């Protein structure tokens, strides 16, 4: 399977993502430059983390108009998989691939730590290797991760099981919703209505090796592989 990792000016997780796909998963990956007009036959597109265009105006606002995004949107509209991580999630929301938006953390601080979350839906293209309700630990590193949507949208994505990852386990009860950034309903990741676009603030690509603290992120990549290859 061929993965395409988009590099925008200011992307900084593209190499980590490449490492996760090529070294940890053992699949092929290519970098797609933001000015390209061609996905080069990739089966899966990943929008990686970083600070595309310096987060000018709003995080992701300018990247969504990069030439490559036209192809990424067409790819998503065909039902093909798009994994949007961190800044990628912000770009996907700006591009209308996912509902809602990501605002400045409620604390106004950049948060960089490993946090616990619960897999709320294990039937998706991106989570079928996890169990429903499984607790996993992934790193987050963002200043604008507060997921926000209007009430109707929020009710719809909750009702349709599209909230895939939810932050849990604050200082108190380990199962309690707890958001490190003030996200509505402690949302960490959602899928599109068709289920082929996942946006998540946590970094699965930084958690693919026990030696480096956690391999809980591998499930995302393995899930894609098992579903798309099948």
């Amino acid at each position, binding site marked *: 399977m061929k993965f395409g990792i988009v590099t925008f000016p200011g992307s900084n997780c593209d190499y980590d993502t490449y490492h996760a796909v090529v070294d940890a998963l053992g699949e092929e990956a290519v970098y797609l430059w933001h000015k390209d007009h061609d996905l080069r036959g990739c089966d899966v597109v990943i929008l990686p983390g970083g600070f595309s265009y310096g987060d000018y*105006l709003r995080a992701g*606002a*300018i990247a969504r108009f990069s030439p490559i995004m036209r192809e990424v949107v067409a790819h998503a509209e065909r039902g093909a998989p798009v994994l949007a991580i961190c800044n990628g999630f912000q770009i996907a929301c700006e591009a209308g691939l996912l509902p809602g*938006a990501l*605002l*400045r953390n*409620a604390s*106004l601080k950049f948060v960089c730590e490993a946090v616990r979350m619960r897999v709320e839906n294990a039937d998706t293209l991106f989570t079928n290797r996890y169990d429903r309700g499984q607790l996993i630990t992934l790193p987050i590193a963002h200043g604008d991760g*507060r997921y926000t949507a209007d009430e109707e949208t929020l009710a719809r994505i909750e009702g349709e099981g599209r909230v895939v990852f939810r932050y849990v386990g604050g200082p108190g009860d380990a199962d309690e919703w707890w958001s490190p950034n003030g996200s509505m309903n402690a949302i960490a990741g959602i899928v599109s209505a068709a289920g082929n676009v996942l946006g998540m603030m946590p970094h699965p690509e930084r958690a693919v090796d026990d030696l480096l603290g956690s391999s809980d992120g591998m499930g995302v990549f393995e899930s894609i592989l098992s579903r798309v290859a099948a």
Partner: protein
Amino acid sequence: MSRFRVAVHIVPRRGLLDPQGKAVTDALHTLGFSSVFDVHVGRHLIVEMDARDSSSAESTTREMCNKLLANPVIEDFEIASVSTL
């Protein structure tokens, strides 16, 4: 064609949690400005452009806001002024 300067205010949508506005409100209270009950922190943009007349400068800027300058999910915008350059 004339040249125009269009000023745009973009603020967080009413009702959404605005932690920056809250922090500034709290700081103003600390300084003794107890009459302040709310502050909203947003962005101010100046767009300089060519247009046929001021109403076309305004409508073009409005279109820019809808497409790029503001995000309707989280922000409200208003054209604060249009002046000739």
